[in-house]
């Protein structure tokens, strides 16, 4: 964590779809260079919170502010993976959109090309740059989507379940990449279901279930009372050699 500059600030944030409230009275601050996780059961409003931060939906009450540029990686289910766009072109999308080069003139400048290349390299996908998106495995597609978010070199990186379907070695590589980015001052906010692999890397967890149940250090958030409130069951936790708490998801026996 570097500095104490606030990058994201939500105050009494309430968002709704057609009058149906999805998140209510959420208060969150995220600082420059922080790496945080958002957790919560299905339908608890994790995606909605990211959408609000990205400015895609307007709050019905309260407010949300971001002090810098944002990149967004959507949840896998929200992407139409049946279009055979080249991997390279998928990653270029974010840069073209950011630099308003969408209409007619869409050739990348030298630096832009370098940014696409670096982003693809960071997720180990550079060799497949000419492959159509449709020909990739689910995990490879996720890595391309992450590369697209990285390519614009944002101040705030918003990731919605980026590890969904990604194999463990790549997952580890991505987590250490995100840690490095946060050390460089980029703010990383990621939705995850299984927080174990990144518990050493994150500074705080936001536990959501329509309301913000808890927000703070992992060991303060992942208490039996809080997980019971969020998930309806208390999630067993183990402590690793380095003294970190690891929630044991998917490891509950009858």
């Amino acid at each position, binding site marked *: 964590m570097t500095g104490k500059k606030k990058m994201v600030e939500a105050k009494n944030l309430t968002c709704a779809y057609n009058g149906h409230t999805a998140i209510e009275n959420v208060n969150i601050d995220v600082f420059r260079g922080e790496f945080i996780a958002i957790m919560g059961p299905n339908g608890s409003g994790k995606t909605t919170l990211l959408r609000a931060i990205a400015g895609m939906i307007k709050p019905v009450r309260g407010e949300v502010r971001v002090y810098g540029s944002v990149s*967004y990686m959507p949840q896998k289910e929200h992407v139409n993976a049946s*279009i055979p766009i080249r991997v390279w072109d998928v990653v270029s999308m974010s840069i073209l*959109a950011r630099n308003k080069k969408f209409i007619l003139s869409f050739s990348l400048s030298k630096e832009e090309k370098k940014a696409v290349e670096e982003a693809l390299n960071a997720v180990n996908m550079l060799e497949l740059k000419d492959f159509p998106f449709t020909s990739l495995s689910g995990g490879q597609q996720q890595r391309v989507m992450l590369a697209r978010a990285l390519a614009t070199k944002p101040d705030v990186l918003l990731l919605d379940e980026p590890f969904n379907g990604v194999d463990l070695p790549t997952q580890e590589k991505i987590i250490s990449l995100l840690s490095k980015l946060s050390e460089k001052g980029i703010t990383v906010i990621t939705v995850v279901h299984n927080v174990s692999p990144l518990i050493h890397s994150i500074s705080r967890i936001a536990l959501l279930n329509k309301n913000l149940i808890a927000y703070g250090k992992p060991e303060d958030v992942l208490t039996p009372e809080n997980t019971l409130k969020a998930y309806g069951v208390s999630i067993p936790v183990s402590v690793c050699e380095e003294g970190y708490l690891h929630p044991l998801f998917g490891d509950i026996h009858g």
Partner: protein
Amino acid sequence: MLPPFLERAILAVILISINASLAGTFTIFRDASFLVAGAAHAALAGAALAIVVEEAGFHVPVLLGGLIFAVATAITAGYASGKGKLSGTEDTNTAIAVSFALSMSLAVLFISMIREYAARVWGLLIGDLFLLSYSDLKLMFASTLFVVLVSVIFHRAFLFISFDAEAAMAYGVNVRLYDYIMLSTVAVSVVVIMGGVGAILVFAMFVAPSATAAKIAGTVGSVFLLSFVISLICGLLGIYLSFNFPFSPGAIAALIASTTYFASIFVK
């Protein structure tokens, strides 16, 4: 030399193939084929209304009537589908289905008001590539030019919002605006194709070639190219066969195009 009516038919098939390739492919990528069916129904109502107006003594090009109705429907349906709005899309299909009902009611109402030109109504419904006039072709040509221009200028935006509307919004792309432009362009194409093969077959000629191409081809560019080739071959075969046998050329073309689609499913 080919007889002029045959030349016109071949020219129309080329124009139709360009539209089926560009707009058809965007439709498949955006998952909007249901919406295209809605625009086709509306185009029929609009064209029928143009004939009614003409009988009342005011000249309106028939395809222009179709054009106005189709574009209006596409925009309404686009609004209902809520792309770029992120607030519930569960009622889209119902909204479009009801708009079918409205279009068809209007179409039948207008057709029932037409007194003298029953043959033209028949022409609207099933089309006839061999009966196209030069002014029909001129309008088809102008519309096709429009569709090509819009596609060249906006294809990246169309692809991005179809691929991933959410991220497009997050990166500041005006998803709603591009969606409206894309759907209106598609509606223009619907009317061009209706001019050639009639309202009943427009859907087949529009969707089948690109749907087939999307099944087979591995890149965006080759989907466009292959759907053009498929609809061109289907159209020319339709003309060839109906020149020698008493078949409707549009029906043959649409029959081959949709059969090809099913064949591509089984082959895959």
